[in-house]
């Protein structure tokens, strides 16, 4: 059966709302009609115009929030993930245990659930004033929550990559460093970390891309990122296929840009002769 659908790609380009041709009066004015609704007569909340809303601007706004949330979260991910990852390889048992607990906790709970806990449960656990501040006074609470939540979730994954990178370096190098009189910190600083970060660029790349894709989960707490705006437009126009096609293409473009940048970084920092950096 052929699909019954009116394709209309032009809605994606809607900019400023067109003038309202329906002659609507102010909605909900009591007494403007015979019924308790102020009448279906004269009352509407949308215009009959093809471009009732600036859908193009909504997509742009959604895309920018996706990029902002993902990039801000990545800053948390990279810094916190590095600290936790290194902590998992140090001698001190307590530090290692804390780092392990962090990784297991954040890695094993679904992101959707974490988002929900950060947004709805954490403010209730805090002292009343702090909770109130988080809920009502902090501007854009859902955006901050999403950034922290995404950042901390992905930090657990980055930590594992950092640890794997450090552990992939033969122990002999650490021993050699120590034998040369370097302190443990100096061994990390000058021997282990510079090599391991280069090794883990490919998995870090996919994780960075993962943040962009996972940022769509933030729509569940009200972040108006790309997927949320697409849903919004789909509900307004019912041109659902066009909108989600556009969103798909945009996500692919963003992740392709990430891959390109990371490839460039990888090529720039590579140490000639290291096997882990590719065969050519």
């Amino acid at each position: 059966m052929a699909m019954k659908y009116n394709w209309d790609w032009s809605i994606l380009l809607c900019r400023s709302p067109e003038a309202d041709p329906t002659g609507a009066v102010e909605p909900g004015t009591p007494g403007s009609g015979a019924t308790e609704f102020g009448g279906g007569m004269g009352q509407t909340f949308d215009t009959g115009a093809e471009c009732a809303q600036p859908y193009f601007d909504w997509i742009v706004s959604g895309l920018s929030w996706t990029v902002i949330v993902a990039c801000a979260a990545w800053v948390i991910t990279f810094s916190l993930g590095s600290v936790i990852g290194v902590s998992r390889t140090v001698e001190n048992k307590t530090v290692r245990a804390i780092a392990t607990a962090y990784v297991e906790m954040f890695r094993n709970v679904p992101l959707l659930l974490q988002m929900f806990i950060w947004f709805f449960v954490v403010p209730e656990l805090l002292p009343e004033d702090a909770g109130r501040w988080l809920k009502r006074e902090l501007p854009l609470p859902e955006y901050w929550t999403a950034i922290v939540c995404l950042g901390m979730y992905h930090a657990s994954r980055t930590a594992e990559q950092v640890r794997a990178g450090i552990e992939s370096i033969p122990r002999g190098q650490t021993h050699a460093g120590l034998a040369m009189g370097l302190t443990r910190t100096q061994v990390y600083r000058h021997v282990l970390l510079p090599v391991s970060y280069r090794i883990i660029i490919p998995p870090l790349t996919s994780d960075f891309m993962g943040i962009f894709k996972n940022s769509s989960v933030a729509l569940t707490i009200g972040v108006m990122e790309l997927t949320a705006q697409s849903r919004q437009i789909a509900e307004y126009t019912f041109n659902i296929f066009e909108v989600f096609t556009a969103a798909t293409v945009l996500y692919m473009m963003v992740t392709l840009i990430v891959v390109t940048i990371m490839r460039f970084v990888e090529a720039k920092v590579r140490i000639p002769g290291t096997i882990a950096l590719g065969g050519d």
Partner: protein
Amino acid sequence: MFKKTVILIAAVFALAATDGYAAELYGTLKKIKDSGQIAMGHREASVPFAYMGPDGKPVGYTVELCYRVIDRIKKTLKMPNLKVKLVPVTSQTRIPLLANGTIDIECGSTTNNLTRSKQIDYLAVTFITGTKLGVKKGSGIKEIEDLDGKAVALSLGTTNEKAIKRIAKAKGLKIKYHMVKDHPQGWLALDTGRVDAYATDHSLLAGLITSSKDPSKYEIVGRFLSYDPYSIMIRRDDSAMRLLGNSVLADLMRSGEILKIYDKWFTKKIPGKPSVELPLSPTLKVAFEVQALPY
């Protein structure tokens, strides 16, 4: 000889009848005839329109009306054993699933408006509601104007969202919006004090309050801020299906049977839930009378 002639004539008539009938069939009815089944899309948590009953099957006001339409399809197509396939849908999936033929009819709480009619078609209006504000008692909020400087939760992409934003813009109200994904989350935002009001359909607010922990803590305030008529959705460009469906609804409205069905779902205890206590509004009563088209 006479007997043979009678049989022959009867056969010719029978053939002509089936032929003519087969030629008439198109669109959804043809698809149902060919596939031997009808796919009914239903919402899962739109109390009391379409929700999962205690036995795991969809029940509700709209679902019951849909079954009436399906009964008529069985009779018209002479398919007493027509299989009904149940497909759960959400507000995001209902349009594509209807357009691509996964479902043939959508039974839930869908607002009938002209923009949406570019993609799908509706049967007669079966329920009328509008946007109101759900607030905590003692909040001091009586009308939308009182929300100036306050926070309100809106369900993403709903007609309620459009209504509130439009009025706020027209009146220059500074309202902080918190977008939520579904009704339980909107309610949670109100309950935890993240927002001062949850703006959604009056009928849904009634349902949310009755199923909350302490219904005496909340109230519904203000005038209707939008006009939201609900209808059953079908595929567009399908007059035969629409005529069949609207005939069923007009019959129910003409006979007054729809009032009994309404009472059953809106004023009494319903399967698995308490009563939503929403008596028939004068507007809806008039709508039933007006839509009871004669033959």
